């Protein structure tokens, strides 16, 4: 597989076209069309990196992108985010999702919401939503339901609990489930969690168990740079201390 080759680390300004050719030789299928993802830019007949990170490649679709890790969120369509309501207007809420511009949440973008019957959120309320419009020239728009099915699919207001911050890359890893920390904690304690790709993680271990919520938050924060075994040891130690 071309995956080995595509573990190369690139810096902004580096030409990556040469790496592509190597990959294409190994593959037979449709090497003409290359799909460029985040962190890559075509200038003339050259392709260069504009972000630093690991150059990733999916041979099947011939897709290339640079996987970096940052803290500032740039909205992308379909991504789940956690935000705080900052204002209410006639047509919708303004929500701080950590991006450069605040997002708009239409009043009716909730499951089963009608003009007469819609949720009334106060300023400062925490919501879990999905980005529906993301465009660099427009303010992002988010929604708390799936507009095709009309179901909430877990989105909506988050009640109680505590939010912590983490890097965007780590939140991504937590959502793609190749990170064991959540299931390890789950072996010891029941808890609810919501992960926003904007670097916010909401944790709730129940109304009366503040200590547990804080502990789970700490465990998740600590887990960013740990592997499976280290996570297990770390969680075990935290649980024993409690």
């Amino acid at each position, binding site marked *: 597989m071309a995956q080995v080759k595509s573990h190369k*680390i690139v*810096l*902004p*300004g*580096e*030409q990556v076209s040469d790496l592509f050719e190597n990959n294409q030789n190994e593959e037979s299928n449709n090497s003409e069309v290359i799909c460029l993802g985040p*962190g890559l*830019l075509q200038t003339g007949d050259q392709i*260069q990196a*504009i*972000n*630093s*990170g*690991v150059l990733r490649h999916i041979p099947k679709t011939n897709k290339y992108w640079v996987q*970096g*890790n*940052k*803290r*500032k969120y*740039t909205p992308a369509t379909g991504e789940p985010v956690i935000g705080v309501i900052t204002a209410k207007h006639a047509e919708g809420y303004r929500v701080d999702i950590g991006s*450069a*511009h605040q997002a708009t949440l239409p009043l009716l973008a909730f499951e089963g919401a009608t003009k007469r019957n819609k949720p009334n959120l106060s300023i400062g309320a925490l919501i879990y939503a999905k980005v529906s419009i993301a465009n*660099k*020239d427009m303010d992002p728009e988010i929604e708390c339901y799936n507009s095709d099915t009309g179901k909430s699919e877990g989105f909506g207001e988050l009640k109680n609990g505590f939010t912590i911050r983490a890097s965007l*890359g780590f939140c991504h890893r937590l959502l793609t489930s190749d990170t064991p920390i959540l299931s390890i904690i789950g072996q010891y304690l029941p808890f609810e969690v919501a992960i926003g790709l904007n670097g916010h993680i909401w944790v709730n271990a129940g109304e009366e168990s503040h200590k547990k919520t804080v502990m789970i938050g700490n465990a998740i924060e600590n887990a*960013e*740079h*740990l*592997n499976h075994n*280290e996570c297990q040891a770390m969680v075990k130690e935290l649980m024993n201390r409690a």
Partner: protein
Amino acid sequence: MTNQDTKTPNNIQRPDRRTATQIRPLSCKQGFLTQVDGSAQFAASNRSTVICGIYGPTEVKPQDEILDKAFIDVKYRPDVGIPGTKDTLSKVVLRDTFKHIIMRSLHPRTMIQLNFQVTQSDGSIEALAINAGVMALIDAGVPLKYTIAAVSCCIDVDGNALLDPTQDEMNDAVSIHTFAFSNIESDNNTPIYSNSTGKFSLEEYKMCFELCKVGANKILAFMKTCIETKISQLNQS
């Protein structure tokens, strides 16, 4: 690596035992500040250090908003005293340099703010600030056209060119030159940034140019190693 020019012999002994073409040992750490979106500290032999913290792309004041690109704001603070005219000059110079490196059109109607704080000054601060800025921008994930590295060079009273001068060497220098080069190979002879002060001849300028080019490439290689180490550490988990 060795410069053919007779005026930069490698046998010059500098007070800190470096040769004329040697840069001080570099150190760099990224992402150590929690409130900013990206940060870096760039140091030369732990005696000259600059910290840079990035906010952005973030909300922009209405009067600064640019419809089709990001507004670049730079803050620069010296290690001793309150910012003065000299620091305002550094600020303007840094802003104009980074304006050309950041892909501003990818984040229209936003602001990218670079906060520089000199923490220890023993010469070559100008170059270190550029290097710290680049590393911080990379840490923040701001899209860049290319990576650049800057280095200073000074000509002493005997006409010797000394790379990466200390404060004492800069004080005694006849002229000081700072260059920044990008990591794009075809641009190897076109510096991104050049600033010279003092009295110097064209030959001296060319000599410094060549010397700084070699120095900048070393720093670029150092930056690459830094980022590779950081990423490979992260990927171990």
